[in-house]
């Protein structure tokens, strides 16, 4: 990170958390809102989708004002979620390419699940699990949108041959299953790795959190902060 001009701190540098302790900004307010709009849509979609998927869960339609309302609302919420998720993808896709360290990380699943992070290769802004989750979500969201449009009886189903509608019904259920499981893992990981939820509720993580869970990313932050200090001491340009 070198530049010909002296760097000066931005509002994203040297932040404090909600208790006034030094912290690192992980998500901006816009990123947080974007995430939570997607998340709220997801919860509504999972509940309404499961209600229509299995008779044992049909009672969940009561949360939406009954069966017909569940049927009416589900696809519209789905479109909102897809658009919101698309913005998230545009924001974060470039952080999610897997590299050699990530492949090594994936080979050490035992160390991952047993909290032996010191044995793992350095992790950047996202670990391999988070990156994989990202791509699983990308694929699932896209497939759910496409199959969902096909089985959206009120507007689109009549445009497709019955064989395609049947296949789309099955695939929609399949990708619904995949995404629900993926999000359960996502939510559990946030509960498991203490300090993660704050990143998405207040926007910040502690330095120690970053150093322990995302050593590579922590290194980048430290490097930038040191560079800001150097530039202040000896301005260039």
């Amino acid at each position, binding site marked *: 990170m070198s530049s010909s001009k002296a760097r000066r701190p931005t509002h994203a540098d040297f932040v404090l958390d909600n208790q006034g302790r030094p912290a690192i900004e992980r998500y901006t307010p816009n990123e947080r809102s974007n995430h939570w709009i997607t998340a709220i849509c997801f919860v509504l979609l999972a509940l309404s989708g499961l209600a229509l998927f299995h008779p044992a869960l049909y009672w969940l339609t009561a949360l939406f004002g009954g069966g017909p309302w569940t049927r009416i609302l589900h696809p519209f919420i789905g479109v909102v979620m897809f658009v919101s998720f698309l913005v998230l993808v545009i924001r974060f896709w470039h952080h999610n390419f897997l590299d050699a360290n990530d492949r090594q990380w994936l080979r050490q699943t035992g160390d991952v699940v047993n909290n032996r*992070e010191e044995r793992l290769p350095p992790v950047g802004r996202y670990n391999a699990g988070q990156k994989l989750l990202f791509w699983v979500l990308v694929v699932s969201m896209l497939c759910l949108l496409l199959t969902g449009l096909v089985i959206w009886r009120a507007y689109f189903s009549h445009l497709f041959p019955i064989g395609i509608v049947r296949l789309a019904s099955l695939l929609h259920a399949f990708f619904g299953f995949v995404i629900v499981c993926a999000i359960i893992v996502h939510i559990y990981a946030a509960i498991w790795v203490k300090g993660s939820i704050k990143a998405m509720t207040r926007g910040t993580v502690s330095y120690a959190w970053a150093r322990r869970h995302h050593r590579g990313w922590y290194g980048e932050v*430290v490097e930038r902060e040191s560079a800001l*200090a150097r530039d202040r001491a000896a301005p260039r340009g």
Partner: protein
Amino acid sequence: MSMQSLDIKRRSATTTPAPSQRSAYAGEVAKLIDVSKCIGCKACQTACMEWNDLRDEVGTTTGVYDNPTDLTENSWTVMRFTEYENEESGNLEWLIRKDGCMHCEDPGCLKACPSPGAIVQYANGIVDFHEEACIGCGYCITGCPFNVPRISKKDKKAYKCTLCSDRVAVGQEPACVKTCPTGAIVFGTKENMKEHAAERIADLKERGFKDAGLYDPAGVGGTHVMYVLHHADKPSLYSGLPEAPTISPMVGLWKGVTKPLALAGIALTALAGFFHYTRVGPNEVSEEEEIDAEANALARRDDAGVPPEAQREQEVRS
């Protein structure tokens, strides 16, 4: 519509037994449509409209006798006319099939329906839609091997032939049967109808239709609406009557093993998380690590000339 006087054999989206204490001791019912006797007068369509209080929109002629041209939420039965040039006999045959719900013994619509009790099959075999419970998703259309159910544009509920379940419940035959002037449509127990069909088929064979036969497709467990066809070897001649209808494997999978497996998979994923938390425990940063990293961070901030107050302002602005 709900018919409390009839008992229920199958009920959509229901995993426990349907109210099935009583059974149809008189036997399951069936409507037999003898295509060879049909003259295409459409009296059955009219009777259906009359009994069920249905009035379809008046359409426009398309140059063929089919009127209306397709089943709709207001036309639960439609005569489909086919001109067939029989190369063997050199005759032009007018094949007229009264289309409508086949009342499958294994109904694809009922299998696909997500709303408990929106579709039922009575003990006598009739498959009926209970529109009060219909949510309008159209899965019945996805599940039907015969392309029969239609969603109403007015109320977004699915409609189709009820086999006049309300009439049958009080010992009457369906309206189309009652009105048919040639006796092409008859109604009775399924066994009786099969016997009647056998006589008709023997007669047709004598008259040269060597492939005459009964259409009671085994792929859907047989149907409670059956056809006598002169060309039972080629059902598709009759405006695309399916050769070997079954519930699509896609629908079978979607509404079969997928349901319990997916729920189990979701539950196991959540349980795996719970047990990981209670066995391995959370991944936490110790207080010493926090203090150490914080001290380093404060030192860098000091080097960068960020006073505590300025930091706070940064925070407010961000």
